[in-house]
């Protein structure tokens, strides 16, 4: 499989504190990869560093063969990386449709507005409401939908199921499967283990700012004792 994202010896700092200690990881084209790990081990930091929001960083990030370390934040999306943050980032002063249309289209191959409304009929009904008047689940749908319009090649998702009802979680899983069929590469941070095991091709386990294990979904049963130990679940 052709690698889409290659991260080598990535280090990140928040001022004085050193948070990522040499992260190495690879995500292949069309692959769905999940990062597991306890709270505070650096999962969100990894995503935010790859996107380029955190810039006190050293190491190598290659995306689609391109060195991303020197790319300014507002060009990351144009290179093909879309980001859905943990807090979802729905704008209160924008309507649902304005939120949806906000991220600029960076390449062909994104979904049209009609396709998005077909996939998320709730958003069509609520299109003139302020973005933050939606329910938590709808906001998560909107946060994902607006990135799907842009034609990015890879989606970075930070805990999409956090705090959502099981039926919504299931819906998000269906959406991610559909994206996979379309060839989208996905890097997911997820605490919901059951959810992740249904959609991921491969897992990374993160601890103390490093990747400590890497295994495909088929090996999951064998890895369970180790996971229990590290995750404390």
């Amino acid at each position, binding site marked *: 499989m052709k690698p889409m994202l290659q991260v080598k010896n990535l280090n990140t700092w928040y001022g004085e504190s050193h948070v990522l200690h040499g992260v190495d990881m690879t995500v292949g084209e069309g692959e769905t990869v999940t990062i597991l790990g306890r709270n505070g081990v650096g999962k969100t930091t990894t995503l935010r560093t790859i996107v380029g*929001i955190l810039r006190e960083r050293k190491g190598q990030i290659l995306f689609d063969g391109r060195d991303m370390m020197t790319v300014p934040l*507002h060009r*990351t999306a144009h290179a093909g990386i879309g*980001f859905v943050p943990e807090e979802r980032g729905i*704008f209160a*002063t*924008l309507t649902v449709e304005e939120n949806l249309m*906000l*991220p*600029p289209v960076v390449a062909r191959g994104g979904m049209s507005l009609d396709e998005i409304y077909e996939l998320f009929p709730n958003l069509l009904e609520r299109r003139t409401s302020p973005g933050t008047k939606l329910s938590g689940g709808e906001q998560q749908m909107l946060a994902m939908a607006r990135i799907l319009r842009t034609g990015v090649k890879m989606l970075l998702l930070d805990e999409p199921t956090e705090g959502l009802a099981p039926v919504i979680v299931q819906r998000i899983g269906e959406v991610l499967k559909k994206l996979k069929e379309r060839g989208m590469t996905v890097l997911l941070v997820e605490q919901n283990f059951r959810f992740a095991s249904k959609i991921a091709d491969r897992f990374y386990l993160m601890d103390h700012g490093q990747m400590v294990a890497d295994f495909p979904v088929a090996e999951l049963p064998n890895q369970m004792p180790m996971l229990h130990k590290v995750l404390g679940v």
Partner: protein
Amino acid sequence: MQALFGQLLIGLINGSFYALLSLGLAVIFGLLRVINFAHGAQYMLGAFVAYLLLQYLGIGYWAALVVAPLVVGLFGAVIERTMLSRLYNLDPLYGLLFTFGLALTIEGTFRYLYGASGQPYAAPPLLAGGTNLGFMFLPNYRGWVVVVSLLACLGTWLLIEKTKLGSYLRAATENPVLVQAFGVNVPLLLTFTYALGAGLAAFAGVLAAPVYQVSPLMGTNLIIVVFAVVVVGGMGSIMGAILTGYMLGIAEGLTKVFYPEASNIVIFVIMAIVLLLRPAGLFGRDA
């Protein structure tokens, strides 16, 4: 009765300038988190550019109405790019101090070059004279000021609330980092916003040139009141800034009719009351 309408008109004229200026301040503060103390100087610059265009190039009022905001807007863009943008990561106090220093420098330079006394600037011939409305006599130029500043406020409001560019501005006001991660060049958006605010101030300055005189200190006198308007309306609220501008202009005019002694302070009294009852301002969202 004549006096009442006369003062109402003056209130409406003043309110037009308050609205245009506080609108620009609110737009700049909303996105840049900078309290632009140079706003009065930029208003003065607009009037001076119009005056100088006429003096040295023979370019008249109508062209100045377009050229002066562009010139001052460009000047604002250069200031933002080269200096103000370096202060965004620091305490907001630095932005305030910088723009305050900038205002003193600009106004000092013009006072050195042109003296403190005002230069006359004639209204365009097309708008000379007045119209008898039956209940009052309306100088045509003043009617024009009220109408065109209303249109400019409405246009700016539409730009921010109803266009794609406006949605970028609103979103970046809420969460600039995420908007940038989506692929929008937010630093450029900040430059544009500062230029827009400066341009609006200059537009008000050109409108004001025939009403007041063109003087280096014309902005200093006005900007204190405009800050009070922004505080009453609520920092960062666009419609709030516009409505409050007109409301306070009219309140000031009416006070002149009924209790002239208080007309200079009425806006500040209103500000004090609003701050006591609604600290976020009449249209502000609670932080």
